[in-house]
């Protein structure tokens, strides 16, 4: 496929105003699916299930099966709606969205059409530079997720060129909330960054509510980005494209930026934008045309006859409103002050998605600095190296205990990293691992003297050098002592003692 012409980003902004709209799908982490008592793979407890093992007749739309609404999913959806500043519908209804595609066996998706559970809200989104933009929310509605298709036989595993597809219906029926913004004007050159920050804010909100695992790499949080351009001064909106399923924060920013540059080149060349879905390609950083938006969008919504309306009483709404967590923007501002972090330190934690972990670690007794160091340092390094999620490696309580062991002098940083290895390997709590592995710092000078004397006696030439004032030669002895004590000695203390013994002998 020929690479699309791109206009320089700043030049594109000179000529055109970008207007974006974002659709975010949030998979709820209830124990069961939206309409069936099957375990929900979006709950991490069931995440690694084998294909087609989280299935009931409802998930397959088998004859005679009937959907029944998960009450917890409704509560979560209302809470999310409230957190998005939305009104909650006095009465809300499910609808069938009809289409033929094997990702759902019923040939329709149960969704909501003209009576969504939540509507007319707004979310305050803070950009890195401190600029704040209120993103208007049109609606948030409940629906079910679709199954997962694996295309086989195509050159790239994507749908084009596939010979057949394998379907796993575990994900079919997972509770979803789709959050749809109104067109967002005025972001201008910040449009790509705003798209990213908006999704990050949604992630913060659902994590604070505890209603989703919110792992983008697992598809718990997915974003479709609508982008259109209009010439400066024009009133009418331009034709938009919808880039589907962009699954990382970084990609969202890149995809919006790419579409602005691609559309600007077409429009400036006198061409027209085709209204279509586009696929994001992570490897090349480009989008390519998917299906055109035409009669394929004729979903023939109608009220789902198998389900009755959801009528949340004022009491329930008041209860859920009272239980809402602090809004993310306010929480970030408060934590930054409480922790005393610099802008850079705080961004390190926030961009790593580690605010909740650091907060919980501090709550468990660690200093903010130590909590930040462990989560953005060693734990993030190990997560990157092993391809695991950092939050899977250790709990905040374990990290706080490690920090306490270092603080009280039981462990050096290096020993603490060994203890962390044990924690990650599931050997127990840090204290248990210190005991089991014999990791505690040897602070008994007596046993160190013996090891030092032995090392000095074994290397008289080194001893002579130290005595001649070549202090750096002590490193050899320190290394020997550290080996002899299996790394449990405090290297700084060993150094002091080596110099002292060398001078005295």
């Amino acid at each position: 496929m020929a690479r699309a012409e791109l206009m320089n980003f700043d030049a594109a902004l000179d000529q055109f105003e970008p207007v974006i709209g974002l659709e975010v799908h949030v998979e709820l982490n209830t124990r069961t699916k939206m309409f069936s008592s099957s375990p929900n793979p979006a709950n991490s407890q069931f995440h690694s299930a084998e294909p087609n093992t989280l299935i009931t007749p409802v998930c397959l739309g088998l004859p005679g099966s009937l959907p029944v609404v998960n009450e917890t999913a409704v509560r979560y959806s209302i809470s999310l709606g409230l957190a998005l500043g939305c009104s909650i519908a006095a009465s809300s209804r499910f609808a069938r969205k009809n289409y033929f595609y094997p990702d759902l066996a019923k040939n329709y998706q149960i969704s909501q059409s003209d009576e969504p559970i939540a509507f007319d809200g707004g979310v305050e989104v803070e950009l890195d530079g401190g600029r704040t933009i209120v993103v208007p929310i049109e609606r948030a509605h409940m629906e079910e997720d679709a199954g997962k298709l694996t295309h086989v036989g195509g050159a790239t595993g994507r749908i084009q060129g596939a010979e057949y597809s394998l379907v796993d219906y575990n994900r079919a029926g997972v509770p979803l909330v789709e959050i749809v913004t109104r067109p967002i004007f005025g972001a201008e050159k910040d449009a790509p960054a705003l798209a990213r920050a908006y999704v990050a804010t949604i992630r913060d909100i659902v994590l604070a509510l505890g209603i989703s695992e919110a792992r983008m790499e697992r598809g718990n949080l997915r974003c479709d980005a609508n982008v259109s351009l209009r010439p400066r001064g024009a009133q009418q909106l331009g034709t938009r494209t919808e880039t589907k399923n962009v699954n990382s924060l970084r990609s969202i920013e890149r995809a919006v930026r790419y579409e602005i540059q691609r559309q600007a080149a077409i429009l400036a060349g006198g061409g027209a934008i085709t209204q279509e879905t586009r696929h994001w390609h992570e490897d090349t950083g480009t989008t390519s045309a998917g299906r055109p938006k035409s009669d394929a969008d004729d979903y023939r919504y109608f009220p789902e006859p198998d389900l009755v309306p959801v009528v949340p009483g004022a009491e329930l709404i008041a209860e859920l409103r009272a239980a809402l967590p602090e809004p993310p923007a306010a929480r970030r501002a408060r934590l930054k002050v409480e922790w005393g972090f610099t802008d850079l330190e705080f961004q390190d934690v926030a961009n790593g998605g580690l605010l909740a972990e650091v907060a919980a670690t501090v709550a468990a007794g660690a200093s903010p600095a130590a909590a930040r160091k462990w989560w953005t340092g060693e734990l993030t390094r190990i997560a990157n190296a092993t391809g695991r999620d950092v939050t899977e490696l250790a709990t905040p309580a374990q990290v706080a205990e490690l920090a306490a062991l270092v603080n009280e002098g039981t462990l050096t940083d290096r020993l603490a990293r060994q203890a962390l290895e044990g924690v990650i390997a599931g050997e127990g709590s840090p204290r248990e691992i210190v005991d089991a592995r014999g990791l505690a710092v040897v602070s008994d000078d007596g046993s160190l003297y013996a090891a030092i004397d032995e090392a000095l006696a074994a290397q008289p030439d080194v001893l002579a050098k130290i005595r001649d004032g070549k202090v750096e030669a002590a490193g050899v002895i320190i290394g020997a002592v550290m080996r002899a004590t299996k790394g449990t000695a405090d290297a700084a203390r060993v150094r002091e003692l080596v110099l002292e013994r060398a001078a005295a002998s």
Partner: protein
Amino acid sequence: MSDITAEQVAHLAHLARIALTPHEIEHMTRELGQIMSAVERVNEVATPDVPPTSHPIALHNVFRADVVGNTLTTAEALAGAPEADGTRFVVSAILGEEQ
């Protein structure tokens, strides 16, 4: 008012993946028109004070507790599949309609 057109019938047939001959389209246009006329009689009694209804029984808030129940085995789940690979359903490649 039952002015359903042949174009609409052809469009619906396409959406429903039903292949119709021109003759069948003509036939269905007539039949659907008659059905529409019959259904439209509802308009005669649906005065503004009758709220639209989507369900014969005036129920709301029928919920299920979030408690895991029984699931099918993979073999049971795949039992009705025309084709399967042991753990997953096999379907022919479908182009250009990714949702």
